[in-house]
């Protein structure tokens, strides 16, 4: 597992209060991890802080799974 994946999963566990083993790469934030749309806004903000990336709203809307977040961050972080 990549270092990005580890850090993303840690943030998801902390923000959503879910068990770490449920945060698989295929997990959907809304369908599998109990998030609502505002939780995703908050998660995106936490990713921006953690990785020093900007995630514009139109890109954030396409992040629906843990894997989507990891891929976006890996492609855009400096």
């Amino acid at each position: 597992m990549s270092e990005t994946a580890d850090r993303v999963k840690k943030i998801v566990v902390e923000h959503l209060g879910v068990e770490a083993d449920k945060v698989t790469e295929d997990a959907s934030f809304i369908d599998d991890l109990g998030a609502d749309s505002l939780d995703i806004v908050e998660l995106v903000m936490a990713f921006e802080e953690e990785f020093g990336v900007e995630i514009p709203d139109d890109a954030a809307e396409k992040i629906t799974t843990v894997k989507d977040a990891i891929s976006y961050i890996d492609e855009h972080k400096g």
Partner: protein
Amino acid sequence: MRRVVVTGLGLVTPLGADVETSWANLIASRSGAGPITRFDASDQKCRIACEVKPADHAYGFDPSKRVDHKIQRQVDPFIIYGIDAAGQALEDAGLTEMTEAERFRAGCSIGAGIGGLPGIASESIVCHEKGPGRVSPHFVHGRLINLISGQVSIKYGLMGPNHAVVTACSTGAHSIGDAARMIAMDDADVMLAGGAEGAICPLGIAGFAQARALSTNFNDTPEKASRPYDRDRDGFVMGEGAGVVVLEEYERAKARGAKIYGEVIGYGLSGDAYHVTAPHPEGSGAFRSMEMAMRKSGLSLSDIDYINAHGTSTPLGDELELGAVRRLFGNAIGDLSMSSTKSAIGHLLGGAGAVESIFCLLAMRDQIVPPTLNLDNPSENCAGVDLVPHVAKKRPVRAVLNNSFGFGGTNASLVMKAV
């Protein structure tokens, strides 16, 4: 009008995270006061408070018991205290599993005086230092006063009236009074009613201290600071926590064999129309509030055995309230007991009236009245009134009166009696 009774209680206080622990510590004359631990208060004029104790304390509060992890992260402390106290009350009443039809007729009226001040203060720093794009998407609904009622209704599926009183330190009493009327007038059969507060933060302490409302002479002896009716009193001690009751229509409660703590039989409200923080110099608002509650109750003055006073330990307020009680009750004042439990738990602001109403109900249940701590030298105007100094007192308690007065000159009084 339909009759309204109390069938469930919930408390989070500086003396305990549940009803029985808080009550036992109160009756044992314990104080919930101490140095402020939430933040570094060394530059504050007032450095003491009655904080809800952390989970590892002997009577500490564990938020995870009834509040989801995610919600704990999103909301201010007053909402967490309120959700927990509401859950306790529903569990106590045996009403956690109502049918959909019952839940259409069950609502919430749980307010606060200040609301999410700690979160507003900290998020304003985020906005200032990091910009608007870093403000939490949960900022607004994690701070709004009606979000205890909102969160509780969602958690338990309560689809009846959803209401939240905001009347400063009268909030808890108004919440119970208003909710009781909703049941009496057939808007609902069951109401969760009460108040909460969690405003112990730098801005909250500084604001009340600057308004000259807080005690500042007892920073080294916090347990001595809240001393209603004592001649050395110099302001209130801020408390925090929540009190919530289950109100239920009497015939419904009786039919299901519910445990009944008491009946809400009188509710009075008034405005001082005088000053934003100072009480009316003749206590006229307090008098009219109590007078209305007594008139609605249909009781005689001599039926009241216990008054839980507003009694915040401020130089002006305590004696004005006592003067109003004296004028209303006349000779009957010699037979009742009156105490201020703020001497032990501090002033819970929006939670005060609800927490203190619960203490009134427990006084009737156990036939014992809680003490006024630190009443070493009563002010001269206190003669001839049993203010229950220092220790709780066993006595008959058939009916009770609870007073709450708030900034803005808002007054509420509740009369309750055993069923």
